[in-house]
């Protein structure tokens, strides 16, 4: 049997459970701060510590953020949702139960479109998104065989976004995760910081023979907190499952952990060892009841969403769908772009939008990528970039020299004006000055002049080139063309 054709006959099935920490100032059921990075256990009050007698009080902002998310993915926002207790013992879970939502989540039946490699669009269904509290952290290092517990994170609000098993490759899973990542930051409901664990996911992965109706047995890979890890972990897991089945084995339903150092997943616990969480409605909290007015008030606060924005850029400014996609892929980039366009002086909106889009998607992106920087770390600010475009608009410099100005800006800083000044890049628009150069060139090249006048039109380019060379590219091209034509005609 041919190995390649066999591998081709397997289909991968992936569903993601994304955990996004909500950007509330205080915890979901207590008044403690949610700020990251404080000394261990300094941001945990009696409620977070699960002291005897304390009670949870729901943070309304967490509810608003979950509703915002639901509306942004076109989901049904439940008018009545219920908090439940998920019971299990672990030292970083102070109460011995996590308050979550189980049977009645706040958000159900949403969707998110992703763009596949071939350019086509695929819709990933979102089963549900529910509110819950995060657990604390167990610190396994630095305690000589003991485990340290930091409860600062305990009680931080999360939404868990559960997808249907609609993804068919690691790339699709990453594309979906990135779209959700972009969305939660657009909505300002999550800072998206994956290193700090604000945005992470569990991936449910299974394989089946292409065309099979039933899903294969799945494994859940826990706590993936980088796009790269998700892709590697899923690809490893898919290969592991296929190899296992082809070798005559069966996949066991398991929870697995990805080891980024070794690039492999390993079993954490089997289905048999899984906890019975004994969910039941939390009697300390009332059902969350939302009326239409509350939901429509939140709908009114929604910003322009990435997909909407991309469509608008194409429609209004004739940007290519590709450029529009790049510019809206992150809230920060979109904001950079919007800000730049909004402060350019001169030119009409559409031409500025196109010109800035070109600069951002080509020159700026190239520079960022070369130094592996994020847009928030760009060495050229929107103000600088807008200044450059403004100087093109008012003909201070030619488009050709703009790239040179940009490179100086990137390398040394400074405004477009200062760079143009110090490098002497100002465009020559003085007709007299250009005429003088042209006259000199005509005088120095009598043969070419004669040839041109006898019908060798192509020599026009030679004269343009000579003028530009003489002026170090600074002569205004339109003026050069016009003046040359009349002078050469005699």
């Amino acid at each position, binding site marked *: 049997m041919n190995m390649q054709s066999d591998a081709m006959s397997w289909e991968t099935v992936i569903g993601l459970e994304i955990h996004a920490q909500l950007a509330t100032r205080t915890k979901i059921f207590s008044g403690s701060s949610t700020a990251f990075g404080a000394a261990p256990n300094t941001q945990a009050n*009696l409620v977070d*510590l*699960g*002291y*005897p*007698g*304390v*009670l*949870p*009080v*729901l943070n309304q902002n967490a509810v608003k953020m979950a509703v915002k998310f639901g509306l942004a993915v076109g989901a049904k926002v439940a008018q009545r949702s219920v908090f439940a*207790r998920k*019971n299990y*013992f672990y*030292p970083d879970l*102070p*109460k*011995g*139960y996590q308050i979550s939502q189980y049977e009645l989540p706040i958000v159900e039946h949403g969707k998110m479109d992703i763009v596949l490699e071939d350019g086509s669009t695929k819709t990933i269904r979102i089963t549900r998104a529910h509110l819950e509290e995060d657990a604390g952290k167990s610190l396994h290092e630095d305690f000589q065989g003991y*485990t340290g*517990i930091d409860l600062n994170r305990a009680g931080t609000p999360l939404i868990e976004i559960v997808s249907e098993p609609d993804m068919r490759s690691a790339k699709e899973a990453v594309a979906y995760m990135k779209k959700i990542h972009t969305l939660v930051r657009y909505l300002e409901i999550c800072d998206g910081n994956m290193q700090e664990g604000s945005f992470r996911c569990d991936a449910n992965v299974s394989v089946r023979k292409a065309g099979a109706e039933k899903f294969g047995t799945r494994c859940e890979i826990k706590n993936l907190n980088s796009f790269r890890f998700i892709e590697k972990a899923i690809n490893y897991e898919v290969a592991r499952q296929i190899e296992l089945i082809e070798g005559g084995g069966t996949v066991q339903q398991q929870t697995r952990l990805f080891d980024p150092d070794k690039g492999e997943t390993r079993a954490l616990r089997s289905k048999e060892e899984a906890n*019975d969480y*004994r*969910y*039941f409605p939390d*009697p*300390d*909290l*009332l059902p969350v009841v939302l009326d239409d007015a509350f939901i429509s008030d939140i709908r009114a606060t929604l910003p322009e969403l990435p997909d909407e924005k991309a469509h608008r850029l194409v429609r209004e400014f004739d940007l290519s769908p590709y450029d529009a996609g790049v510019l809206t892929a992150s809230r920060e980039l979109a904001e950079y772009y919007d800000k730049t366009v909004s402060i350019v002086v001169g030119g009409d909106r559409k031409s500025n939008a196109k010109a800035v889009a070109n600069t951002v998607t080509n020159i700026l992106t190239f520079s960022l990528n070369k130094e592996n920087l994020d847009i928030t770390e760009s060495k050229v600010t929107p103000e600088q970039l807008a200044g450059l475009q403004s100087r093109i608009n008012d003909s201070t410099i030619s488009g050709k020299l703009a790239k040179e100005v940009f490179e100086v800006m990137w390398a040394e800083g400074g405004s477009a004006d200062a760079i143009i000044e110090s490098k002497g890049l100002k465009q020559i628009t003085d007709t007299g000055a250009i005429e003088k150069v042209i006259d000199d060139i005509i005088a120095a090249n009598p043969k070419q002049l004669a040839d041109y006048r006898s019908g060798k039109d192509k020599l026009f380019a030679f004269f343009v080139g000579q003028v530009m060379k003489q002026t170090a590219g600074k002569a205004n091209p339109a003026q050069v063309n016009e003046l040359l034509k009349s002078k050469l005609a005699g």
Partner: protein
Amino acid sequence: MAELHAQTLTELAAGLRAGKFSSVELTRHFLERISKYDAELNAFITVTSELALAQAADADARIAAGTASALTGLPLAHKDIFCTDGVLTTCGSKMLSNFVSPYDATVVTRLKQAGMVMLGKTNMDEFAMGSSNETSFYGAVKNPWNLAKVPGGSSGGSAAAVAARIAPAATGTDTGGSIRQPAALTSLTGIKPTYGRVSRYGMIAFASSLDQGGVMCLSAEDAALLLQSMSGFDVQDSTSVDTPVPDYSATLNQSLKGLKIGLVKEFFEQGLSNENAKPVREALAVYEQLGARLVEVSLPNLPLSVPTYYVVAPAECSSNLSRFDGVRFGYRCDNPRDLQDLYTRSRGEGFGSEVKRRIMTGTYVLSAGYYDAYYLRAQKIRRLITEEFANAFKQVDVLMGPTSPTTAFDIGAKVDDPVTMYLNDIYTIGANLAGLPAMSIPCGFLDGLPVGLQIIGGHFAEAKLLNVAHGYQQVTDWHKRMPERYA
């Protein structure tokens, strides 16, 4: 003037305001009685003498300055289920035998702000699980009417302390009858308010959807006074209800003419013919003389309240008690080998057998495969019972009947038979399942042991209950009787 300890809280309040005695004198009197009698009663787990005298001195200053409230300077004891800042709070368990609470429960805060003086913390069944106060890590409490008998539970320490007049009043909590049954067994007035009327913040949870704080005292008038300060919405308890607290004392003297009293057919038609129910029958006759009418009502599902309760309450407690794991506070076993050992031994050694029994029952009824058959079904019956009560209150103003099926029983008589013990709560549990306010008031004696009359009202009908109880206490003196030994 009667001896200080023979007076009701209302009388003591008047005496304080009239300057007949100071709060310090009053407090010292009760502290002396505690040190004289509590060795035999075991009603207190902690006596806070110094704190009490300091609070009393503050109260005297407030009274002198004219900034006192009705309760300023009056002593009381708190059930040891209420967290008290800087004071040992054990919940009757070895698990919390070293737990000094870093904060006050809302009930404690409110009574403190009113100027009340805390004498100490009273004994109770472990985590409020029991009907005889025999499950306490701190030992059984004796009934002041007969030291061989139980005082009832779980608020047995509060009951014994007030009945023996070593405290003029005490807080209690009632999850299935834990205020009313001990009040009945020790001849006290006890009230469990509507669920949500009194904040549960700082009250160590047994069964969150059933637990409700209340008071045990000597008269309906006293209960009105205390409840006034304890009640009301609390932002820290999402299940507390934001509805105004009426002036309970203002309506105490309303006429009972035309009052419609419901007798629950399923419970009391047989129970009332029983010789044991003679005092209850006589009390009903008193109400008829006061102009009330007796009406039979039917609550067909009420007899299911005990099995329903013994699914719901253990389910909630199994989860509520998970936080006692030996990690952050409370009892921790010596030299744990690993995490599993830490959990297993800390909980195994820290909890008593009744608590373990309920945790196991609760874990079982919530388990995959059993949840629907037990927990969900119990919730359905709970809703039916609640509806049946609501329908009954369309026909009658209050329901009445016995509080407890028997008078106080011998210490040790039922400890090995949990099911018989559970049946003690047969008359009281319904009000908890439906979240209704309910009282027990003294209505006589059988063989020298007190009998209680239970009065149940509709949601937030505390004022009506207190009025009905007060009317009876104006024409009877059962509530004034005290055990000779402590007179």
